[in-house]
């Protein structure tokens, strides 16, 4: 029986547990981290405490929980530690990918876990000033974090000479102003600097070298930073025993759409399949009565969609997409991604053209407009889909959409938004082409229900 494995969400929703320090207790793991003394290695060299923590994180195999699934230990190893400039750490709490609501649970219900994780990550990386960049819509979340930070400061878990260790750290909360693109790390940095959230070109502006205020900067997701706490608590090797090789630890999966029990579930990575996540009573608990599965988006709205019954090939094994273990590598091998851990389930009541129109409109609205293919392509696709859902579909529209979508991703844009806006179009149109073609046949007319929130202005 697949089970939840609550590590990060251990206290979340526990009866009587609040966001207060009183509930959370002392920062025992931070104390442990600060107390880590120098270690003499086999070759006679000594390794200081912070470096040992970095090694533990490398050993844990932790991969970023924000969307790209990049190795956290490797990311930290890229930081330019010799520049003489301060190193900054930013917690990316801009959780904006449609379908994703995991970081919100941590921030609202267990903020001290995040702060402790951040403090440990900062100590490990010689950071003395860190920021939590929180999405503007999380108004209450920002208040909760600020209250928690104040509590932590009072207890000297933050501030000068933390718990007598000689280590100083300050953390500030910065609210975004409602832009998806500010979840992209360099867009976030620009926004934090007070500018438009335009992602930076890489090269040369890799955050590890030229990040916030042109200083070396680490940007980690909320859940990733919480995982760091548990890695230091249990040791990297123990953490790596959770999950599956190269897909270690636990991760929070957000299940939404046409399931009977939508919600957030923490699982050991790769130990549960998509089928189980959708149908098992411990998780989504299946579709509504009389409905059959039509499509699954496995990792937030920008991930490529899986069609029900789709056969995918992973390591020479052909299997139904539902039988994919929910991890980073298998889903990538199957041609999509687990992204931000958001599974969006669509049953046979879904109008696939309208669903894509909805996604496309989101991305057209959120494109920052800096670089040409994304700026012009995202709205173009949205307008075409809007037209189709309003009954003006044409015969060649499926290919017309693919022509646009194919010209945006693959390194043609400054940031991964190009992929985010074109992958849904490529996969929806590619896998449900007949439905897009049917739109044009004999004037299909507008969709029955006009569910799309707003129409793009012309």
């Amino acid at each position, binding site marked *: 029986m697949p089970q939840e494995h609550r590590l990060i969400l251990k206290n979340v929703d526990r009866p009587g547990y609040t966001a207060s320090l009183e509930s959370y207790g002392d920062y025992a793991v931070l104390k442990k981290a600060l107390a880590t003394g120098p270690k003499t290695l086999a070759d006679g060299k000594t390794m200081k405490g912070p470096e040992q923590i970095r090694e533990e994180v490398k050993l844990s195999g932790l991969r970023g929980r924000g969307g790209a699934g990049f190795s956290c230990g490797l990311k930290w190893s890229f930081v330019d530690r010799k520049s003489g400039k301060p190193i900054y750490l930013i917690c990316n709490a801009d959780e904006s990918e449609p379908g994703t609501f995991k970081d919100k649970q941590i921030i609202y219900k267990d903020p001290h876990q995040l702060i402790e994780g951040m403090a440990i990550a900062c100590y490990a990386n010689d950071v003395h000033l860190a920021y939590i960049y929180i999405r503007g819509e999380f108004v209450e979340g920002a208040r909760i974090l600020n209250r928690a930070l104040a509590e932590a400061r009072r207890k000297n878990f933050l501030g000068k000479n933390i718990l007598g260790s000689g280590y100083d750290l300050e953390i500030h909360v910065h609210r975004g102003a409602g832009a998806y693109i500010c979840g992209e790390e360099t867009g976030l940095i620009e926004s934090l600097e007070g500018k438009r959230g335009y992602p930076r070109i890489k090269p040369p502006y890799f955050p590890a070298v030229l990040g916030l205020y042109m200083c070396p900067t680490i940007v980690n997701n909320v859940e990733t930073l919480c995982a760091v706490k548990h890695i230091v608590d249990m040791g990297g090797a123990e953490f790596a025993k959770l999950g599956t090789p190269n897909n270690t630890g636990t991760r929070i999966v957000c299940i939404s759409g046409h399931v009977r029990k939508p919600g957030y579930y923490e699982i050991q990575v790769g130990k549960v399949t998509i089928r189980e996540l959708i149908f098992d009573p411990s998780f989504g608990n299946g579709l509504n009565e009389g409905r059959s599965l039509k499509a699954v988006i496995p990792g937030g709205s920008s991930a490529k969609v899986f069609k029900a019954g789709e056969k995918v090939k992973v390591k020479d094994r052909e299997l139904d997409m539902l039988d994919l273990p929910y991890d980073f590598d298998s889903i990538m091998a199957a041609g999509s991604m687990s992204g931000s851990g958001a599974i969006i389930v669509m049953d046979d009541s879904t109008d696939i053209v309208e669903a894509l129109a909805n996604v496309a409109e989101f991305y057209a609205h959120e*494109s920052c407009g800096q670089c040409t293919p994304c700026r*012009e392509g995202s709205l173009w696709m949205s307008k*075409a889909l809007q037209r189709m859902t309003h009954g003006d579909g044409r015969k060649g529209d499926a290919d017309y959409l693919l022509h646009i979508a194919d010209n945006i991703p693959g390194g043609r844009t400054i940031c991964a938004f190009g992929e985010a806006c074109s992958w849904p179009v490529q996969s929806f149109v590619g896998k449900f082409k007949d439905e897009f073609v049917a739109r044009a046949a004999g004037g299909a007319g507008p969709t029955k229900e006009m569910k799309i929130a707003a129409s793009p202005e012309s």
Partner: protein
Amino acid sequence: MSVAAPVETITVKVDGVALAVPKTMPDPMTGKPIPTTMIQACALAKVDVPHYCYHPKLPVAGNCRMCLVEFGTPALGPDRKPIMNPDGTPKVAKSPRPAIACATPISPGMEIYTSTPGAKQMREAVLEFLLVNHPLDCPICDQAGECKLQEYSVEYGQSRSGFIEEKVHKPKRVDLGPRIVLDAERCILCTRCIRFTRDIANDDALGIINRGSYSELTRYPGKRFDNNYTLNTVDICPVGALTSKDFRFQMRVWFLKETRSVCTSCATNCSIVIGSREEQVLRYEPRENDAVNACWMCDYGRLNYKWINREDRLQTVRPRTWTAALKEISDLLGKAAPGSVAIVASARQTNEELWLLSTLAQKFNALTDSVPRSGEGDRLLLNADRNPNSTGARLVGIAPPVLGSNLPKIADAIESGRVKTLIVFGEDVTKHGIRVDKLETLIVSDILPNATTAAAHYLLPGCAHAEKRGTFTNIKGRVQKFMKAVEPKGDARPEWEFLHELVYNVTGQNGYVTIEGLFNQMAKEVPAFEGMTWAGLADTGAQARI
């Protein structure tokens, strides 16, 4: 190329041709060495990579995506050593992702592919995207004929697009400031103008509002786009979004004759191109010259050309004809006693003219000077010295180190009757304490009428710089030549021509019949210009010893 200091080079291949390029190039803003980029390497290889947002004198933005190229780097084995081809050359692994040439540094052994089917396809796609919301109003657009969107569409684009949706509409005819009009629909959001005004002109006046396809260039609320360098944004705007109020709708650019010249509004002497049509000067544009003005010029200088076309330009010789007037003046000067002649030249005259006048002055041991002209300068290009050639006037000896310091002496000498003949070029000396009514002979050459020209016994109509050839020496000693754009008005003649005649008549000196010969002669005799030749000045000039 014979560059003085040997620099470390990297060998790369551009479209199959290997070349060594410097490892670093100066940062356009700070001058510090930064890694050479693909687009710079391609430029050195004489391979043109199309681009919109990139500008060699501005910080890199990387947003237009027009310069996307494919590339490869030497493949490394698991041991981090290069993998070799059977023929012993290093194996190059083509990158799965393209790169923007403007921002990607080169690395040893890199191969840049600018004309592969993949690179061409990416360009085609970018152009299609740029055009979907573009109004395509070329027939009424001032930029037509010098528009990068037009040029690249012809060169790299498709002839048609499948776009059938409604275009995005944005504000038209936006009054950004006193000299600039914006058509936001034409704008391709390359941000060149924003970067120029923020990073070069130091006036963070422009920005983008809204998101995605609705992004729109605008000025800051409540602030006019009004610094002294705004018109440069019209030059660097690759499309017709920013237009000059002065030039818009005046002339189709393909009708313009373009002449290399120099701006005369201050001592900086920005290199310019004069655009003219049917003997009318219609615009100035800056011409790239790293020794003087990079790619820029100030609005004040750019718009200070209308006097050339003025209706009241002096066009008639007085008295009678050039032949008669020059003969009479020559005879008169030939008999003049030393000390009885004074000369007020103008620091708006060319080096050659000032040198000819100083040759005359030596003959009479004449008191000479020219009139200072000053205003407020700035840190970029506009100099407080508003004469274009004060340096030249000093170098040839016609003006004292402090311009105007001899004027009171000349006034006194006229007052006391010692000086009986005054030669004035291009200045209204009545404004500088000189009583022309005391003179026996007043010889004046000028372009526009004033109290001095009105009192002249001999009036010789001269030429604007746009109507003749010559050289100026700027405040830093840069000697630049300029070419003739339009014909002189009426009977007017280039000053150097008739001055040469006078000098020959009065002193017997000769040896040149052309401006080239005259310049070369001057360079032989004036130490500061030693070694220079007219031909050697080329397009960007040469440095005088000052």
